[in-house]
């Protein structure tokens, strides 16, 4: 994955200038942090930075579109934008992660876990990996498999911090 400077995006995220559009991103992060708390009691977890997601403006824009659609509850539109982005950057681990998030919302838990695993296979970024394991935990939980959810959460904790 190409790593470039995405300070622009992250600055907007930090200062909240993305407005309501970044709702689901933020919500996702909060859920992730809470999930972390539940198991090990660490107060906060450094949030993954979607800001580092791509070098290509077109991909970033598609990610933003997807985030907006997700916020509006238009899950299939959100997924379509990400699939479009994946056609441009098929090896971008962040895009696979985002798609996994959408699938959790769609309650397609099995696919969600698989997509998060694909994201993990493409990245050595520990924070992204931790976020993926948390997604996998959410997916198992959604699918009614608390034991596997717990294991996944432990993997996330091993990677976090």
């Amino acid at each position, binding site marked *: *994955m*190409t790593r470039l400077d995405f300070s622009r995006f992250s600055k907007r995220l930090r200062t909240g200038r993305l407005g309501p559009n970044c709702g689901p991103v933020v919500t996702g992060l909060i859920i992730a942090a809470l999930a972390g708390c539940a198991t090990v009691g660490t107060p906060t977890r450094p949030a993954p930075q979607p800001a580092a997601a791509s070098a290509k*403006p*077109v991909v970033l*824009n*598609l990610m933003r579109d997807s985030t907006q659609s997700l916020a509006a509850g238009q899950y*299939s*539109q959100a*997924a*379509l934008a990400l*699939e*479009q982005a*994946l*056609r441009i*950057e*098929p*090896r*971008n681990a962040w895009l696979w992660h985002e*798609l996994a998030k959408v699938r959790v919302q769609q309650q397609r838990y099995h*696919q969600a876990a*698989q*997509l998060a*695993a*694909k994201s*993990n*296979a*493409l*990245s*050595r970024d520990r924070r992204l990996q931790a976020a993926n394991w948390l997604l996998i935990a959410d997916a198992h939980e959604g699918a009614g498999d608390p034991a596997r959810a717990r294991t996944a959460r432990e993997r996330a904790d091993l990677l976090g911090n």
Partner: protein
Amino acid sequence: MANNAIQVTARPFIFWDGARPELPFEVQFHGDRVARLTRDSEPIDLVRLEPRLFGSVSPIDHEDRTLVRLDQVPRELIHALLTVEDRDFYSHIGIDPRGLARALWANLSAGRVVQGGSTLTQQLVKNFYLTAERTFTRKLNEMVMALLLEIHYEKNEILEAYLNEVYLGQAGSRAIHGFGLGSLFYFGRPLRELKLPEIALLVSLVRGPSLYNPYRHPERSRERRDLVLNKMSELGVTDRQTAQQAKMAPLGVSSEGVQSALAYPAYLGFVRQQLRQDYREQDLRTEGLRIFTTLDPDVQRATESAVRQRLTAIERARKLPQGTLEAAAVVVRSDSGEVAAMVGARKSRFAGFNRALDAQRPVGSLIKPVVYLAALQQPQRYTLATLLEDAPLRVKQAGSPDWTPKNYDKQFHGQVLLIRSLAQSYNASTARLGMAVGVDTVIAEMRQLGISRRLQPFPSLLLGAIELTPVEVAQMYLTFASGGFRTPLRSIRSVLSQGQQPLARYPLSVEQVIEPGPMALLNYGLQEVVRSGTAQVLRGRLPEGVRVSGKTGTTDDYRDSWFAGYAGGYLTVVWVGRDDNESVGLSGASGAMLVWADIMRRLDLHTGEFPLPVDVELVAVDLGTGRLADKHCEDVIELPFIVGSAPTERAPCASPQINGKVGGKVRNWLDRLFRR
């Protein structure tokens, strides 16, 4: 065109995810590349162009037909047709005495049949049932049947049947029947989108599709079209000015090279198969569905020309009879499983036997990676550095002669590293490995990878004595190419109903079937095939920095030449051989691999590889013994190992001590202690 920029207006179009209105924009070029897209001077980063129509599938029989209903046919077309072919259609009884009298007079004076005078009904009968001989008996038969047809059917039913049956041209071996297909074939657009001059051209073809062929005889075709327009204006079915304007228009047929309507028969065959498999029959029975595919016309064109040119070159270089080699190729986007291109024949534009989909051929060594994968999934037993025995063996098979695999170079190589055995494609050592792992385990592995056909557990399967189609091979290798995630091959992106509602979508779906560790090891082995093994010739044939993984496949007596390989986001599988199954004298590397390289060279390859998983480490080992190497060893190879599976014994060439002080084991212990 100014400043190397062009103004473009994208027509409004309904995509699977919604409508896109008309979109004017500007494209600026830098050299031969697009530098910038702007709209009203504002930069835009993505424009979706209207997709090109390249085929049609009849909802009823899934044949390549575009049936039209009468109410979908432009009024102008009906007017034009009746004007020139059968003015009294709605009043006659199937034959037209006046028209007939005219024709009869002409024929009697000539002493033979020179003029038709046939009604549409008669023409339909002719198209349906009868031969093309021109005799009075046939003419009589035709008239009787036309009369009968008129008794049994309404005028409109007859007209509709005519519109769908009439012969309008020839695409290679395929006849173009019906105005729906004709419209696609000549203009690449559906009938309802045609304008008057195009309609007139189609109607003019009724009289003689080859006589008035717009490609071969543009002048004659134009005259005939204008004649149709003149007659329409004379009879007042269109006003004079409109007809005059239409006559100014160019012929407007799509250029022959991009006659997209029927351009990709192999790909269309695959789409048809997937429709049948994955959609409900009743959904497909409605008409006017729009099927969006994953075909990439550029990749398709590159694949077609690579196949065509390379086969000719091989035949010439090897003094093979020209035109005897056949081929199939499948190009897939590695991470999504989207099929970008498919070629089912050397003459790819001709419909016929689709080798990509239907040719079942022995796969030979293409199967070997499955055997090695089954082994590498047991890291405590097998690593890339495990020594295998490449020596004669004899295996009893129930119901067939003993199996005694030999190597292609007719030698045995003694003790070889597992990775070397894979890279050099040694048969004896692979067979021994497969027997140790178990034939059933290998078959189970193939299932995981996406092969669903029933397989008999004969040991000879281990060396590829099984028949698969190129598409099946692509499905199997796709799992390797996508990092161990089984992803169904797909050619359909979406289907829209006539009401422009998406029927059902093929979402991207993946399934991890190989753990990252073993997958990384196998991938390394398949790269070694290119670095030092049977596909070495590939080195330097692709751009720098693109890592290639692949495997050659050759079958007995050199009947089949295969190559399956992936790089830069694409997986491509190529088969070369003969339809009559005679030997072609080509190994995988001297046939299919060359085609493969020609295809891949023309693609826009991505960079970006799977990183080594966290539980995999690189360790240097001695090539001869597979044990730990150091700087004193000469033949060293650095190999990935799943953590905890790397060799611990030192190779004879390595010095027994490191740093002259601490022995290996102690050093390892200290390393672990201090996490160095």
